[in-house]
């Protein structure tokens, strides 16, 4: 395969001149999906190689997913790019990797558990980096020895990650001309010599691949005419916020949410908005509340520790009826926990953390693309319902990239009900007036004749502080009614399939659950999937409808304390037979684990 390599550094960058064209027939494989892991110590370039591989797959017409496994070190820790490339949209990592490229084995033991291998797997390792670790040998995977370092050294300026990338692309059947084009796009601005060295290293790796154990090659990509995006969950969250109309962001840096802010800062500045780096999360949430009070749709992004600090002020947003959105990109907890790795364990605090009776919105995206939809929807709902919304993303969504069809738009909603500037208020303006829907017109500062004081103290309809039972009851009822009475439509959950067995899940775990459900259906096991997007307010009528006829329920979540299962029990009537797959991060829940339970129920 990959005929025509001569192993010499290319003096020109064009793929044709590089002699990389080869008959298509020699490249076409047969499998619909291939999983690849590229690992190395921090700085070895494993992530870069993974990102290039994903972009190559995208340009070649495939779908794909790339997640990251990283240590906490800023430099010099362990890093793994975990990819799956496929002819159809990818919802989760596979149960094992078909190909593992080890740039080195430094710190491998720290994430060995995140790299499942099978006897069919191929592991490419550099003999110069020492023995293949025991755990890898024990998997039964075939080992291919490739002198990555030596081949890289033979190219002036050559890097091992490019040799490994060249080999990986060749092994799974990605076209070399596209590899060269993507590398040119990503490294071109570093100068011609850097690019030439990279191309030569790629070619050396690709040429050497011919002597390595064969990996199942990808079938032809789908020519479905669908446009493709290459986007991370955190970027999709930022874009969703922007599309939702957010013009003010205040935030404090925190892993793994920072990329949301890094993407939004320049984007806001160019669309008439701004991002302010606050002194802490207490300031961030209160700046956001102030900006929203002043009329600007506002958002902050954080992770669990930051959400904990914001909780008191989220109650203020409830009581003062100020729309704000808090994106929580969840990580392992409690306390500082595991900042770089994913877990679905902020559900409890997001749903129940606020003191007092404090109705609010909690939403969760269930895929990388859905980060855009759900964040945009959350902004629209918060604005419409004059309430805070918490969006529970997680590290597995936020810091992963996917090749996806362009995400869909949420349904249009009313937006913020304000007092028109021309409105002549007949008597004293009642900011918290009792209305049928529970939503009252909000006067934005600058509006004449309707000055008022927004208050976190319980208040009268005018906003004047009140400790009277009647005022308290009326305002509690109004704030609950406006959320419970709203018509959220079918987007409260993604419901797929039919049958007496149902999988109920949420957030990033929806990916493997969706794949397991598809596998089960392929085996003739009729399976329903219910992925809950709108966690609060609960939707008992819709859930009852979704569960009609279901006899067995499998709850799937990534937490030790079964937070989602307990949440479901507290909000909904569940069928008699309920099983739970629940384990903590950082290990992802894999499709096989879910499928096995479904198969056992057959």
């Amino acid at each position: 395969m990959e005929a025509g390599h001569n192993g010499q550094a290319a003096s020109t960058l064009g793929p044709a001149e590089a002699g990389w064209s080869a008959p298509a027939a020699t490249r076409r494989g047969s499998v619909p999906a291939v999983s690849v892991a590229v690992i190395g110590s921090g700085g070895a370039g494993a992530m870069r190689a993974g990102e290039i591989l994903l972009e190559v797959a995208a340009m070649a017409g495939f779908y794909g997913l790339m997640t990251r496994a990283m240590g906490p070190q800023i430099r010099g820790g362990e890093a793994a790019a975990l990819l799956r490339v496929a002819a159809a949209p990818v919802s989760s990592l596979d149960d094992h990797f078909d190909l593992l490229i080890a740039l080195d084995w430094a710190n491998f033991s720290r994430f060995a558990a995140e790299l499942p291998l099978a006897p069919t797997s191929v592991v490419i390792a550099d003999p110069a980096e020492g023995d293949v670790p025991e755990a890898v040998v024990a998997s039964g995977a075939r080992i291919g020895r490739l002198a990555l370092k030596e081949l890289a050294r033979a190219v002036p300026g050559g890097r091992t990650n490019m040799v490994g990338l060249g080999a990986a692309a060749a092994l799974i059947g990605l076209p070399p001309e596209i590899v060269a084009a993507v590398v040119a796009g990503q490294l071109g601005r570093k100068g011609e010599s850097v690019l030439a060295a990279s191309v030569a290293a790629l070619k050396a790796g690709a040429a050497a691949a011919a002597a390595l154990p064969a990996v199942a090659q990808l079938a032809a990509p789908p020519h479905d005419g669908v446009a493709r995006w290459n986007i991370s969950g955190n970027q999709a969250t930022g874009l969703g916020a922007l599309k939702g109309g957010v013009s003010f962001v205040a935030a404090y840096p925190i892993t793994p949410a920072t990329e949301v802010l890094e993407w939004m800062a320049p984007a806001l500045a160019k669309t008439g908005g701004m991002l302010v780096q606050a002194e802490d999360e207490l300031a961030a949430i209160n700046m956001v509340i102030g900006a929203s009070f002043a009329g600007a749709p506002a958002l902050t992004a954080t992770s669990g520790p930051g959400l904990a600090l914001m909780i008191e002020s989220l109650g203020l947003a409830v009581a003062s009826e100020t729309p704000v959105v808090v994106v929580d990109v969840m990580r392992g907890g409690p306390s500082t926990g595991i900042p770089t790795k994913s877990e679905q364990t902020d559900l409890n605090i997001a749903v129940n953390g606020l003191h007092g009776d404090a109705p609010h919105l909690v939403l969760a995206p269930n895929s990388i693309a859905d980060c855009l939809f759900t964040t945009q929807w959350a902004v629209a709902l918060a604005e419409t319902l004059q309430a805070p919304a918490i969006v529970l993303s997680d590290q597995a969504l936020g810091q992963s990239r996917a090749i996806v069809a362009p995400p869909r738009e949420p349904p249009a909603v009313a937006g913020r009900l304000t007092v028109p500037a021309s409105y002549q208020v007949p008597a004293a303006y009642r900011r918290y007036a009792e209305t049928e829907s529970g939503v009252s017109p909000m006067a934005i500062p600058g509006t004449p004749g309707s000055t008022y004081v927004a208050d976190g103290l319980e208040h009268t309809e005018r906003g004047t502080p009140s400790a009277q039972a009647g005022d308290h009851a009326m305002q509690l009822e109004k704030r609950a009614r406006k959320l419970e009475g709203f018509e959220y439509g079918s987007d409260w959950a993604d419901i797929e399939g039919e049958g007496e067995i149902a999988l109920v899940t949420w957030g990033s775990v929806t990916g493997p659950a969706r794949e397991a459900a598809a596998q089960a259906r392929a085996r003739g096991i009729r399976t329903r999937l219910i992925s809950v997007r709108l966690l609060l307010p609960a939707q008992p009528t819709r859930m009852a409808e979704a569960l009609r006829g279901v006899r067995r329920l499998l709850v799937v979540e990534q937490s030790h304390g079964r937070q989602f299962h307990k949440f479901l029990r507290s909000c909904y009537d569940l069928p008699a037979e309920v099983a739970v797959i629940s384990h903590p991060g950082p290990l992802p829940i894999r499709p096989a684990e879910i499928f096995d339970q479904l198969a056992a129920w057959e």
Partner: protein
Amino acid sequence: MDDIASLSAQNFKSDVKPIWCPGCGDYAVLTALAKALAELGRPRETIALISGIGCSSRIPAYTGVYGFHGVHGRALAVATGVKLARPDLTVIAAGGDGDGLSIGGNHFLHACRRNVDMTYILMDNQVYGMTKGQASPTTAPDWCESKLTPNGTGVSPVAPLHLALAAGVNFFARGFSGNPNELARLVVAAINHPGFSIVHVLSPCVTFRSEQRAWKQAVHSAAAAPSAHPAEALARFAEDDGFTTGILFAGDREPFMPQRDATMTAGDFEHAFAVRTPLPGPFTAAPAA
């Protein structure tokens, strides 16, 4: 819109009856603020008064402007959000020594260094009044009247002037509620001064610190025009007794306001994520039927 010419100080007050004790210094602060706002002559709807929690933080409800009465300690953060989102508004934050210097101390520091164009009225009575008389960050270490600290706090009090100057405040005045006319002038000057300005008001608590009635005899006017250099001001007031009133510092730092333009729309950013069209070639061409 308000007819500015016809607005009197009374128009800047509301009909809500304050919860304050008879004789509380905060009544005079409210009067001075209303007088200052009338003098500034800006429409009521263009002013936002932001507060946290405490006796003095109740002040927004007693005025006729837009207000936000938030949680304890966060008035400056809310005010920062209001001003950055709406530079056209006149933004004032108000509160007490506990709200601003203890639970909200971090925001005090960062508001000083951030220098957003807004004014902070810090009503200092050296006590937590709303919770019935505990020591605050400005309470003297040997004050023994609180059941929480019957032997005194034993902790050095914060000097708001020195703290603010060290943190980079752009304007600092001190007034006394017993002299509301001077206080009103200081509030006007603070609002008119670009950047973050503080009006530190000695506002006695007659309920828990009745000895503060003697502040009337203690206050004295600043002897010289304010310095524009923080180091000079710090040196001049190094031995300040805390009762010097007037404008004590007036700096010339540029206020913070991020640049923004609206040359793009949200939709424009979608293109950045679109995968480039594959190169034409044998692999990427549509398969033959």
